[in-house]
């Protein structure tokens, strides 16, 4: 059994955190890039074409200049899978915090984390509860980061609907996008959580944003088509492309409840994963090229 407190493993986790954040902030996942390129080819509205053209050029420039895609580098949300031979100890959290501090210096990230009431900035993007770290058991030791900007987070919503009115889920998704308009920097990706509990449904909605967007089931596609029917378009300036994808994650719930949450994500849907080698060598692999996170795990 390995303990993240061991200096070599601790440093491997710090390095993995820095690598995942650096990759996520500078380069979009391949499925998101492809979705934006496809939208650029099919969009008919000339203003929307200009906006998508700017976004695609921005992606190319960020990669060439090795700078963040957006000045809102977000707050860091981490998803960790721990294999049976690695212990879950406070050193795991400490190592990820250290990685976020180093990434803030090096990438650099904008210091975004503040006390909720005094609004005093903590400095290195760490604080009570941030980065958010979600740990689950898995076969391999992986660390996935999802930097989340505020423009899209601020228009995200949840509701406890009536179990007898499942059709209201679609209405809630549409209503959320209508109220959001151009504020979340569309074209957006909508992560929809259905079921679980009041707190759990928001987590499901955020986890849906980790899913590859190059395929949708029939329900997801129908929601996506409806959202695009609103005509909000890139940046709220009108057009065919309001959402690149809608992804749904479900959980079982109380027979008297129907929790629903919509986590709105901007076009800069940033995520990257690192596989941490727990052996002596440091062969951690950074990637946001994955099409399917579950396959890698």
């Amino acid at each position, binding site marked *: 059994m390995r303990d993240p407190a061991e200096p070599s493993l601790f440093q491997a986790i710090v390095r993995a955190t820095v690598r995942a954040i650096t990759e996520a902030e500078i380069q979009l996942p391949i499925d998101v890039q492809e979705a934006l390129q496809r939208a650029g080819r099919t969009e008919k509205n*000339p*203003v929307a074409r*200009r*906006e998508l*053209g*700017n*976004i695609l*050029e*921005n992606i190319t*420039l*960020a990669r060439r*200049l090795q*700078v*963040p*895609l*957006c*000045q*809102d580098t977000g707050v860091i949300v981490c998803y960790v899978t721990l294999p049976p031979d690695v212990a879950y100890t406070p050193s795991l959290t400490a190592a990820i915090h250290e990685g976020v501090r180093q990434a803030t210096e090096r990438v*650099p990230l*904008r210091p975004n984390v503040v006390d909720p009431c005094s609004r005093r900035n903590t400095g290195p993007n760490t604080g009570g509860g941030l980065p958010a770290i979600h740990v689950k058991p898995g076969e391999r030791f992986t660390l996935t980061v999802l930097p989340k*900007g505020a*423009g899209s987070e601020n228009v995200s919503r949840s509701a406890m609907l009536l179990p007898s009115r*499942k*059709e209201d*889920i*679609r*209405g809630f998704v*549409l*209503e959320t996008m*209508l109220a959001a*308009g*151009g*504020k979340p*920097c569309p074209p957006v990706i909508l992560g929809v959580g*259905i079921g679980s509990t009041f707190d759990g449904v928001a987590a499901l909605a955020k986890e849906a944003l980790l899913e590859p967007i190059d395929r949708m089931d*029939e*329900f997801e*596609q*129908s929601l996506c088509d*409806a959202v695009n*029917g*609103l*005509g*909000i*378009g*890139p*940046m*709220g*300036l*009108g057009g065919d492309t309001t959402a690149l994808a809608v992804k*749904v994650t*479900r959980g079982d719930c109380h027979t008297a409840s129907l929790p629903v949450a919509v986590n709105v994500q*901007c*076009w*800069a849907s940033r995520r990257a994963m690192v596989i941490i080698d727990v052996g002596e060598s440091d062969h951690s692999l950074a990637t946001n090229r994955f099409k399917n996170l579950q396959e890698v795990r």
Partner: protein
Amino acid sequence: MDLRTPLGEEILELHAGDLVTLSGTVYTARDEAHLRMLKEGIPFPAGGAVIYHCGPVIKEGWILAAGPTTSARINPLTDPLIRMGVRGIIGKGGMDESVVQSLRGKGVYFAFTGGCAALAASRMTLSGVIWEDLGMAEAVWVIELDHLPLVVGIDAHGNDLFSRVRQTAEKRYRQLREKESSHPC
């Protein structure tokens, strides 16, 4: 159309939805700089000036990232600046009806693509700073633009592309809600 600062009467020809590029000097200003301008006056030549709603990331005299910030926060602070001669505003998300009215016959609002911090920086050269004591995000940075690609969001004739799109979206929302979905969850 390729525009250059300071802006003049040519902007009266623009219409909401026009695609333009802008070159020449612009001044960044967010909430704090606006509050100070209202108290102490505009610290740069106001006639034909363009204000950019932006809090850039500057490192050692270089602009690293300079995407637009949400303009709506600055709605109540904008009218006096237009009265003093400012003719152009660059930002994201649009502005409210009071600003649409202030711009009538006087100026235009340009939308720049949200999140495009690297693209913006690639079309910019830093040439100075005013009120640096406000901090990096809130200071007034003097920036030379080279063909920044923009969309006219609000023109000088009272046309607002954002509100037009919003009205259409509301109408379509009502239609979509009436239709039964064939794919229940």
